[in-house]
């Protein structure tokens, strides 16, 4: 009995680890190439906390085609690179980003494993340090976590974001993604040429909205979209970015679906697969 379990486990592991990425079969709207985007920089399993300058720069140094940055806004309208809904899950502070001023937030430190040295970064700081940087893709995942009036919040957020994008002296592409159609429309009104992605719950919803509003593409969890649906999005002129890619198996499965962008937590593994 034990030998049967052992053999099943052995071949199970062998099968899952040996699945191959089919690079020759890639067909998309990104010149038949997949851009490797690091989630918050190096992803959640890195020694650097995601969305820190260190993690974002490490991803660029590692050879990523680009980075995804989670963007929230403080109560004094500073755009802040931060992933979680609440500060207490990963830092020495508590509450929403939008509950605090940047003056307070800049003193919050990430507690990563058992060390506490990395600070929270504002987007203007990162833009300043990356001035004249190499041509990479920057994806802004706009997390609209607000504490007061939504309409006022997104108006200010959109204004600050367009100012920021203007200040990014960066040769690469800038992509903006959001779960809010109202916010994307607002950005579209301010800057019609921006590359906007809708972040739907399901493929059908995403396809419908992205087509209706003339967006650049959709961002969706890799497990929520099939290869055929990605091809359908491409047929409709829409790019597809997939996320929630956390392992080698996820990387391989995502590659084999031919999206345009993969936002991965296993960046080095994805880069090795795409070589």
């Amino acid at each position, binding site marked *: 009995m034990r030998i049967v379990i052992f053999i099943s486990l052995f071949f199970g592991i062998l099968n899952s680890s040996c699945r191959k990425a089919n690079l020759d079969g890639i067909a998309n709207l990104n010149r038949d190439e997949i851009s490797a985007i690091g989630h918050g920089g190096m992803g959640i399993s890195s*020694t*650097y906390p995601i969305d*820190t*300058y*260190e*993690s974002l*720069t*490490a991803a660029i*140094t590692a050879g990523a085609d680009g980075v995804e940055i989670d963007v929230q806004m403080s109560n004094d309208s500073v755009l802040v690179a931060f992933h979680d809904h609440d500060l207490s899950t990963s830092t*020495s502070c508590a509450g929403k980003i939008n509950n605090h001023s940047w003056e307070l937030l800049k003193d919050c*430190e990430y*507690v990563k*494993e*058992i*060390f*506490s*040295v*990395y600070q929270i970064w504002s987007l203007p700081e990162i833009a300043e*340090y990356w001035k004249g940087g190499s041509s990479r893709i920057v994806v802004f995942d706009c997390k609209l976590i607000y504490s007061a009036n939504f309409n006022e919040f997104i108006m200010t957020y959109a204004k600050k974001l367009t100012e920021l994008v203007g200040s990014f002296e960066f040769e690469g592409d800038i992509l903006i993604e959001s779960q809010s159609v109202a916010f994307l429309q607002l950005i579209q009104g301010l800057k019609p040429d921006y590359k906007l992605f809708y972040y739907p719950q399901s493929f059908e919803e995403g396809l419908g909205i992205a087509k209706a509003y003339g967006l650049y593409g959709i961002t969706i969890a890799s497990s929520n979209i099939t290869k055929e649906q990605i091809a359908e999005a491409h047929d409709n002129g829409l790019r597809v970015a997939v996320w929630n890619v956390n392992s080698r198996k996820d990387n391989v499965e995502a590659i084999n679906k031919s999206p345009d962008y993969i936002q991965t937590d296993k960046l080095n593994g994805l880069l090795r697969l795409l070589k």
Partner: protein
Amino acid sequence: MFRTKFAWVIVLLLALGFNSHAKGLGTFADTLHNKNTVTLNVGGPAGYWAIGYERNIVRQGSWWMYGAVAASLWGLKDYNGDFNPNVSIPLGIGVLYGGSAHKLELGLSNTLYSISMAEGGVEGGRELGMNGNLQIGYRYCMPHSRWSIRVYYLGVLVSYENFVNFGGLSIGYSF
């Protein structure tokens, strides 16, 4: 309330069990437990991994007191790709209680660390910090062998400000 009482009863029974085990195997313990132990640690007060050294300082019946030091390097290259490793050095003392094979341990330690970070610009800087640690664990010393393994819970006071629950696992070789 019942759970708490039950937990205390378990702890008491374990302690009595260890005590009787210790008495039964006293001579065995004397011959097998050398003063020095080198350890390979995963997790623990050093963070990710470490090589450590322990020395038994005092022994009184089934009690031992030891001092320990460890060192760890990780992330050899920083975010700019330059050689700029992170370093952590825990230093602590602890007590072991039990027989020749099974021991409970309680320890206190301080971890000094220096970590590469972007401080005030694109050039890599470093941050020096300290943690306080409380360690509660179990150690198994293999009979007729110099090898031991241990597993422990670690309560860490990060920068002596924020409390974090952590843990560790290590193997040791005594000589």
